[in-house]
């Protein structure tokens, strides 16, 4: 399936990138800032996932699905 091939290609490309970039521990201050987190506000992300799940057909993406509800 095309989407699987694209994903595998992206993963391979990123794995290749991993051998090229070196950021030393003392250079990671900006990366550790709250606003650089994947989930800066976990409750906000959970709320948005739940609201959009009940209003739209799509779900999933960066995590395995959680519990269901009667809202969709």
């Amino acid at each position, binding site marked *: 399936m095309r989407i699987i091939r694209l994903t595998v290609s992206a*993963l391979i490309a990123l794995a290749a990138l991993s051998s090229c970039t070196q950021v030393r521990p003392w250079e990671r201050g900006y990366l550790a800032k709250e*606003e650089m987190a994947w989930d800066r506000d976990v409750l906000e992300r959970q709320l948005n996932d739940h609201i959009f799940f009940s209003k739209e057909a799509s779900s999933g993406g*960066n995590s395995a699905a959680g519990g269901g509800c009667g809202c969709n």
Partner: protein
Amino acid sequence: MKTKHSRSLIALSTSALALPGIAHADAPPTESTLSYKISNYQEDDLTRAQVPFGELGRYDIDVHQFQYVSPLGRDFALFIDANHEDMSGASPWFSTANAAGEPVINMSGASGITDARSELSIGTRYYSQNGNFGGAVGYSEENDYRATYVNLSGSRNFNNDLTTVTLGFSHSADDIFPTDAELFNRVRNEDKRATSAAVSLSQVINRVTTFQTALSITEQSGYLSDPYKLQDARPDNKTQIALSNSLRYFFIEADGALQANYRYYRDDFGISSHTLDLSWFQNINRTFQIAPVLRYYSQSAAEFYTNIDDFTKPLTEPQSSDYRLSAFGAFSGGINLIADFGDWTTTFTAERYVANEKYSVYAVNQPSPALVQFVRLSLGVDYSF
């Protein structure tokens, strides 16, 4: 804004980034945090042109969210999540054609629908030098729905903690027992299962940039129809695939961060979608931060979607006029105001969501008259101790 070490939670979405001097690449939280968020979102009323008879009001929903995170010994963390929702209002029941042959909506709940949902999940996570592993169990209950679920996920760091691979798995077992089943000839008791797996790879690109790509696959089986729609029959299994890419970039001169997320989704109901959301986190000073957000979403229609119910069609054939299966696009925009007072952090959020068939990037052959619009307000508080 104070600097906090990023932590990997149940939702497997964090790259492990070690602050200088920290011995462990992944570390459990060093203090406990109690978080609470209260939200209200209210769907816009429909118009008389859309609903020729009956009430025009839709849903009004209050949400309470609680989370407790605490270190557990030296290498473990405890996570407790609890949510409660109160819902009242009406929703589309079936769709017919007006004199001009255009679809119009007939709403359910002449006297209004009220429902409440409560959810509790408890999880733990173990942190090692090279990664972490954990899981959670959860239970939710509504007047007409019950779900029990389990999540497991683990992360492994490579390349001096610049690369993180995460695997996740979840399974949910749901029971559906619609209210007024005999009165409205609805199904009495059905069940649904969902199993999901996800893999993600996060990569530090340079000292101000990180990137993540993730793939999730979900298989649903059982009763997938809406028992509250008069003419709704969906296949009894569905496969969903979603591919996400996320970027985080810190602008040093501006003292702000850009968050960009894109998701492509596809399922075998025939629906595919694109989601793009952008956030800009601007530090005002050490205490205040402002973060505008913008989201665009567009989906195609399910193969069996119809905007006018055909009551001559047997329910053995897939069919639904549920607007959530139609082709449409949606914009939402909002603002977050964040105040960090050390142990206390408060966040205020205001958001407006508007769905319209004109916003769709997909062909719209049968626009739904029931697309939703709403305003959401939230106030959250975090206390660390």
